[in-house]
C-alpha cells in the first residue's frame, strides 16, 4: 500500500526558552513561533489560509482573536480544545481540510507561561464544586492531577505485576535523550533541576514519592513554552525549503470514567488502530515514537494501547533500554527529552509533532539514522479519568 500524500508538515518551530520570566506573553510566543515556522518552510503570513489553535488564552472568541492578532483572513478556523492532544487533532483536521480543498497552508500555534505564572498543575488544588456535573461529583476528594495518573499505575501494577523499576525505564530513556539536546539541558537549568545528568533506574525509584506509586522523576516539568507547525498541501509542500513530512494516518478518541471500566486502557486503544489502518503501517515499523510523557505510566499505557506490545506486557517490554535512540528492538522514544526532561508548559502535543518532524528530516539531537516513520500520540486531559487521544502517523519520502 502506497503512503498517502495529501498534506505534509513543512515548517516547525519550538520556542527555545522554558523560562521567559514574564517577559513575553503566550500570544506573543504564538506569533513569534508562527513567524519562525513559516520561515523554516520558506513561506510567509500571506500564504496562511487555515488557523488551528487550542482556544487557550483568547477568550470566548479565540478563533477570531488569533486571526486578528496574526493579521490574517483565513478560510478555515479550528479551535478544537482537547488539552495536550489538541495539536494531534489539529494535524488530523488540517490534513482533512487540505484534502477537501478548504485551505492550502495550515498554521498550528501554541504558547504558555505556566512556569512564569507559577501554576501548580500537578499538585494544585481542585476547587470547590462546579456547575459541571462530573466535576461536581469529583471535586470533594482532593485528587491531585498526579494522583489521577498514579491510580492508573497502581491498577496496572495490580493487574499485570508492573513494577516501579520498569516504569523508571521511561524516565531514564527520556533523560538520556534530553542530555543530548542543549535546549533541554538549558530548560532543566532554568527550572532549577537538581543534579542534571543521565539518570539510572535507582535514581528514579529513590526520588521522593509525590502520589504513590509515582516518584518525582516520573513526573513532567512545568515550563513556559510555545511552538508552531505549518502543514501544507502537496503542491505547496514540494516547493518548501525543507523536505516534506507527510501526514499519512490519524485517529481520534475519547475516554472517561465508566462504572466497571478498565483504567489501565486509554483512549489510544481506539485512536491507535484507526491511525495505523489509515496509514497502512504497523506500530512495529515505527522508527520514532513521540508519546505524551506527562508521567512514566502515561507512556507505558500508551505504548501498549498503540500496539507496540500487548496490554500488560509494557513493563517487561521497556526494560533494557530499547527505547533509546541508539538501541535496537523498539522505536526511539521522545528524542527531544520529552515532557519529563525538556518541555511541558501544560499542553505538550505540538512538540510531539515538531520532534517527529525533526527526526524525519534528520535534524534531531538524538537522530535515528534514516528515520522514515514516526507516530506522535497526544493524550489530553487526565489518563485516569477523562481524556482525549490523538494519534498521528508521519512518513518521509
Amino acid at each position, binding site marked *: 500500500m502506497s503512503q498517502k500524500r495529501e498534506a505534509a508538515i513543512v515548517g516547525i518551530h519550538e520556542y527555545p526558552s522554558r523560562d521567559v520570566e514574564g517577559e513575553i506573553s503566550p500570544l506573543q510566543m504564538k506569533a513569534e513561533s508562527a513567524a519562525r515556522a513559516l520561515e523554516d518552510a520558506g513561506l510567509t503570513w500571506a500564504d496562511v489560509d487555515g488557523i488551528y489553535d487550542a482556544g487557550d488564552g483568547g477568550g470566548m472568541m479565540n478563533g477570531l482573536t488569533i486571526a486578528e492578532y496574526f493579521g490574517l483572513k483565513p478560510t478555515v478556523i479550528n479551535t478544537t480544545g482537547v488539552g495536550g492532544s489538541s495539536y494531534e487533532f489539529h494535524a488530523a483536521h488540517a490534513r482533512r481540510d487540505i484534502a477537501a480543498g478548504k485551505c492550502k497552508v495550515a498554521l498550528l500555534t501554541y504558547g504558555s507561561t505556566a512556569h512564569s505564572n507559577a501554576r501548580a498543575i500537578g*499538585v*494544585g488544588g481542585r476547587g470547590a464544586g462546579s456547575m459541571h*456535573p462530573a466535576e461536581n461529583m469529583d471535586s470533594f476528594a*482532593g*485528587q*491531585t492531577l498526579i494522583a489521577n495518573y498514579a491510580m492508573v499505575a497502581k491498577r496496572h501494577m495490580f493487574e499485570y505485576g508492573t513494577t516501579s523499576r520498569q516504569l523508571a525505564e521511561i524516565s531514564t530513556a527520556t533523560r538520556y535523550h534530553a542530555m543530548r539536546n542543549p535546549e533541554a539541558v538549558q530548560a532543566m537549568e532554568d527550572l532549577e533541576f537538581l543534579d542534571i545528568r543521565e539518570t539510572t533506574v535507582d535514581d528514579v525509584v529513590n526520588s521522593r514519592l509525590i502520589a504513590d506509586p509515582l516518584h518525582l522523576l516520573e513526573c513532567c516539568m512545568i515550563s513556559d513554552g510555545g511552538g508552531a507547525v505549518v502543514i501544507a498541501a502537496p503542491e505547496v509542500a514540494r516547493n518548501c525549503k525543507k523536505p516534506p513530512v507527510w501526514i499519512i494516518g490519524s485517529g481520534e478518541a475519547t475516554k472517561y*470514567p465508566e*462504572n466497571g471500566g478498565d483504567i489501565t486502557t486509554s483512549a489510544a486503544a481506539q485512536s491507535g488502530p484507526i491511525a495505523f489502518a489509515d496509514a497502512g503501517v504497523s506500530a512495529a515499523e515505527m522508527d520514532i515514537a513521540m508519546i505524551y510523557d506527562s508521567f512514566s505510566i502515561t507512556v507505558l499505557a500508551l505504548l501498549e494501547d498503540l500496539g507496540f506490545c500487548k496490554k500488560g506486557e509494557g513493563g517487561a517490554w521497556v526494560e533494557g533500554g530499547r527505547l533509546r535512540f541508539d538501541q535496537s528492538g523498539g522505536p526511539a522514544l521522545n528524542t527531544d527529552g520529552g515532557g519529563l526532561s525538556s518541555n511541558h508548559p501544560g499542553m505538550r502535543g505540538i512538540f510531539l509533532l515538531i520532534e517527529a518532524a525533526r527526526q524525519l528530516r534528520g535534524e534531531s539531537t538524538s537522530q535515528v539514522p534514516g528515520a522514515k516513520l514516526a507516530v506522535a500520540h497526544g493524550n489530553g486531559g487526565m489518563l485516569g479519568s477523562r481524556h482525549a487521544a490523538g494519534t498521528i502517523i508521519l512518513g518521509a519520502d
Partner: protein
Amino acid sequence: MSEAKKVPTRPLPKAEEFDTKEFWAGTKDKEFRYQQCADCNTVVFYPRRHCTGCTSGNLEWKVAAGNATVYSYSVVRQSYHPFFRNLVPYVVAWIDLDEGPRILSNVTGVTPEEVEIGMKLKLDWEEHEELNIPLFTPV
C-alpha cells in the same frame, strides 16, 4: 480590625447543580442515591437526566446499601490545596459500589499503608451543614 483566622475546609459540591442535585439532596439523609434505567437496566452514575444506554430516559432513583470495593487508589503526599495540604498523606480512590456506581472518594479510618486494591469498604459519611460527603472506611 483583625480578621478571624479562617480554617480551610473541604471543597464542597454545589447542591444546586442540575444533574447531581438529587444525589446531594439524598446525602442529607445519608442515602447514596444512584439511577438505573427501567427499560435497559443501565446504571447511570454520575447522575444525569438522560439514560446513557438507551433513549427512553426512564431512569429510576435507587439507594445503594453502602458496601463497596477499592478499584484503585493513590496516597497523596504533596498537595498545595489549602485544605488537603494539611491532610497529607491521604488516600484518594476509585471505589466501586456493589450496585455498580464507581465514585472518586477517600478511604478513611486506616493508615495509607494498609489500603489495597480489592479492599472491602463501607460508607462513612462526613457531616456538613447543608449536605454530607460520602467517604469510605474498611469493613
